[in-house]
């Protein structure tokens, strides 16, 4: 079996939907700028690219038309390069990496661009035409449960109160603010050109947010609950891309190898606690990698909500100091289709930056699933 490595990672700034600087840019423009930047920063021969695999949670409207192939034209890639769109909702672009790793393992290609995009301004969450199955809704209303209520359910199940969730959110903002201040995002951010404007900074980071400020927010989903907009990831516009190659090819072509993909997994769970999805998926992936969670040096756990993040940290017995070192989605945002590529690319980058051995990237997914990737350093 051939190994897959991550040999490049880039992302756009993430900005708040409807308000932020990326609201007026089409998702194809956003994504193609990130991919072009990723390619130009590597020593890649474009002719070697097998496929562009793009994750997108709501692949319709401007994100439709098989955006994976559409961007090959906008990135001036050779006509021989294929393109596809994959949909696993929030896990879409992590899935794109898994697809590539699988293809590499079976010898079906050596070079893949695995990316993700979501303009939650321009294509609404749930899409333009949400048409749930009426009978299924009656039989099991939880299938179509609101994401916020799942966060409330997890908070109840794990006894996570509002203050604890807010502490987690404050920490996410602090870490992101410091990372930005220290220039830690410079290596990953593609400056986006939108007409005459340049967008180079994330839009959601709030330095100096406090318990008092967060106490002032209304309950967003359940008026007897604990979850607010401040302890949820915001609607976000953004794109991220990784370069996934066969290990020997990468070495031969002097590509900048960040990490090896050691194992991957997906796992289902009850939809009403979908935020716990990372637990089952991570356990499977760790098991497949032959390590346990105490051996993890770097963890990128998507912060869909503070409550579910805290529950996963507890259940998986993760060391909080290793989780989301540069901040997570509560501060940076969660453009659904783009998040998987961001956290997997970020985990690889951190593994090298911190000089460590094992990393985990994992996230929860609506309807009740989780997805996880274990990375290891390449000597």
């Amino acid at each position: 079996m051939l190994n897959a490595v991550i040999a490049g990672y880039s992302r756009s700034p993430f900005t708040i939907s409807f308000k932020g600087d990326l609201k007026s840019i089409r998702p194809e423009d956003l994504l193609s700028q990130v991919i072009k930047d990723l390619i130009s920063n590597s020593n890649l021969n474009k002719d070697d690219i097998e496929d562009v695999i793009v994750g997108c949670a709501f692949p319709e409207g401007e994100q439709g038309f098989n955006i994976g192939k559409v961007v090959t034209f906008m990135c001036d890639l050779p006509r021989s390069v294929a393109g596809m769109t994959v949909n696993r909702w929030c896990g879409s672009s992590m899935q794109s990496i898994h697809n590539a790793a699988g293809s590499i393992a079976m010898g079906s290609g050596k070079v893949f661009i695995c990316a993700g995009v979501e303009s939650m301004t321009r294509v609404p969450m749930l899409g333009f035409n949400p048409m749930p199955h009426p009978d299924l809704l009656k039989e099991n209303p939880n299938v179509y449960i609101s994401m916020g209520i799942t966060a409330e359910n997890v908070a109840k199940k794990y006894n996570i109160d509002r203050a604890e969730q807010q502490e987690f959110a404050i920490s996410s903002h602090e870490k992101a603010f410091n990372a930005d201040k220290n220039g830690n995002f410079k290596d990953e951010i593609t400056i986006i050109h939108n007409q005459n404007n340049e967008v180079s900074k994330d839009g959601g980071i709030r330095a100096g947010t406090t318990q008092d400020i967060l106490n002032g927010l209304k309950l967003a989903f359940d008026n007897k609950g604990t979850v607010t907009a401040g302890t949820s990831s915001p609607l976000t516009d953004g794109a991220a891309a990784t370069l996934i190659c066969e290990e020997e090819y990468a070495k031969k072509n002097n590509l900048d190898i960040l990490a090896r993909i050691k194992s991957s997994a997906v796992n289902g769970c009850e939809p009403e606690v979908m935020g716990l999805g990372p637990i089952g998926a991570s356990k499977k992936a760790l098991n497949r990698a032959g390590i346990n969670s105490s051996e993890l040096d770097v963890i990128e756990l998507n912060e869909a909500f503070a409550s579910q993040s805290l529950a996963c940290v507890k259940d998986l017995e993760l060391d909080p100091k290793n989780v989301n070192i540069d901040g997570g989605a509560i501060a940076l945002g969660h453009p659904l289709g783009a998040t998987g590529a961001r956290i997997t690319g970020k985990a690889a980058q951190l593994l090298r930056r911190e000089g460590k051995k094992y990393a985990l990237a994992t996230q929860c997914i609506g309807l009740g699933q989780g997805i996880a990737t274990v990375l290891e350093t390449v000597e």
Partner: protein
Amino acid sequence: MINKVTVIGSGLMGAGIAAHLSNAGIEVLLLDVLDKNSKNRNNIADEALKKLTKIKPSPLTLSKNIELIRSGNIEDHLKLINESDWVIEVIIEDLNIKQNLYEKIERIMSDDLIISSNTSTIPIKKLVEGRNKKFRSNFFVTHFFNPPRYLKLLEIVSSKDSNSNFKNILSNFCDVKLGKTVIDCKDTPGFIGNRIGVFWMMSASLKAIEMGLSVEEADLIISSVFGAPKTGVFGLLDVVGLDLMPHVLSSMTDNLDSGDEYHLYKNIPEIFNYMLENKLIGRKGSGGFYKLEIVDGRKIKKSIDLSTKVYSESIKPKIESLKLVKKNLSSFLELNENYSKYAWAVLSDVILYTLNHTSDISNDIVSVDSAMKNGFGLQFGPFELLDKLGKTWIIEKLSMDSFSIPSLLENLPEEKFYKADEGKLKFFNFTKGVFENLERPNGVLILSDIKKSNKPIDKISTASLWDIGDGVTVFEIHSRGNSIDMNTMQFLNKSIDIVDASYKAMVIYNEGAMFSAGANVGEALFLGNIGLETELVDKIVEGGQKVYQKLKYSKFPVISAPSGMALGGGCELLLHSNFVQAHVETYIGLTEAALGICPAWGGCKELIYRFNNSNSMPKGPMPSIMKAFQTIGLAKTSTSGPEAKEIGFLTENDGITMNRDRLLYDAKMVAIEMIKKYKPPEKPVYRLPGSTAYSAIEIGLNGMEDAGQISAHDKFIGKQIANVLSGGETDIIDEVDEDYILKLESKAIQALFREPKSQERIEKLLETGKIIRN
């Protein structure tokens, strides 16, 4: 032609005028002085623009209009004034500062740049002192009233040197484009509006203090007798700001003869001084004659006692005798009680002042009435009030009080200043001493003029059908709130037959404060309560549906011309018209859900059709259903005609008229044009998603209920509406027609009417005029 305007001065008035120009689609350059304390040299104008978006009610008809306003500062950008066609100066009321600015403008202005001042009191002859011929020829006073979007009066003053062509351009622009009632005034202090209006305010407030009335009593009497807004006089002083009154009064008395009655009001009463010292200046301060206080989380309206200066909870007085005012004003004024004595004291004061000064300030009596109605929101001008009483009665009453009789009244050859004669409305021309036809400007058509000299084709107590010439009829509703009851609906049905047989078009129009408050829900509730449910369904719900369908598909074009509120069934009337020519101040909404019911005269089917066929909507079966649900479920109401287009109550092709007085004429012109090649619309077919759409909406409603945003009953109402909009049991591959959706509407409203909580909402509205959430 005026296409671009510079406004100098970005205070409340300047920014408000700029906003209203943008409402007319005009590009504006808004200048103020340079801000030396800021890096941004345009900071003062920029800050004013920021404030504009926050003022309620909004000075903008659409928030995006503000993009038409560019900011600047006088130092850097005065040179750009020649890119404009008109410069309006709206700076501080200080002659020297104004003259300095004019001197700068004079140096750079082009030959055809029109310039005007928004001064409210300074005579034009003083303003143009020292200016060259070109400046004087191009200069006018254009006096807007605050707030410029909402108050219709615009006073124009010319000097002897003013260019008449420029004046015509300016008058026509302000009338047609800005929707103003433009009145020519003579060059005297306060022109017409403020001269009479401020006098009225001072008289009404001071006499109330003198005669020991409470602020509520005075306001109620003033609003009944003068047909003034509910604010009366003290409420109005709170809106204007008491702090302005000393300035206005001294400006008046400085410029008026010592014999002018204004000098009687120069010394303001002790209570005013007390309030000024304590910053109790009205709404912009910490309260005035009235103030709102939060007590135990509840907003309490309080008022000041004019003698003890103590605030206590404001209680609306009950003055039984005021019922007489509408029926017979003179008999009220003859009563031997303090209230009627107060009313007469103010009325006699104001009419004497008006009669004695009209010839100094105005060319005719019509302008005086118009200024008071359009600048102060009164229902009747002073001469119209005089006509309610008659010359003989007034002279007798004034003589009894030993007043000398003004010559203008003495010279009136008949009992009244206005009369209808040979199908024409006439007014007394005091300069010639004869009655003359009241000529409306070209493009102005007033139904009440027509009504004064014509008989309707047919009428009932709540509605009439009028012939307005050229084959065009007007269907006028004139019930309370112009609501639509069973009889009105049947009369509309009959009117359709009449027009079909003998005329060519129908315009639905009235001159009430609102187009229509919607269906008479009180009547429907009554039928439901007494067990006549079948009656309710047959006659009101499905009866109404049939008439609206007949209206939509009649052989002749139906044009609605709304102004003010068009809610519920009133909105549905617009949705079934073949064209809508709306006044810019039209507030449209399907507000049934707030009352616990749903649109059932075709409102749901019309909205779905419009959203399905809108180019700005995403495609697919769901977006139009979701948008219709949000619009109906949240009882969304437009804050202007243009916004009604944005929401979708009006189509892109529907027309907007800025000037209320031109609305009927514009609608008639549309009718005449449509008659030429009119074909009724084709009946649409619908493909609706059915239960899947219902499920999608249900999921959303569950989330809103969990978050405490809606009540359980709101959710119930929402589900009924969702069932109509989704098409009930249909499937996306099936075609359904309008009748199918109308049946769903009927079924939904029946279910809702049976709900005690919906009945409670309607009862509370009828009792208190307020919407409750339950």
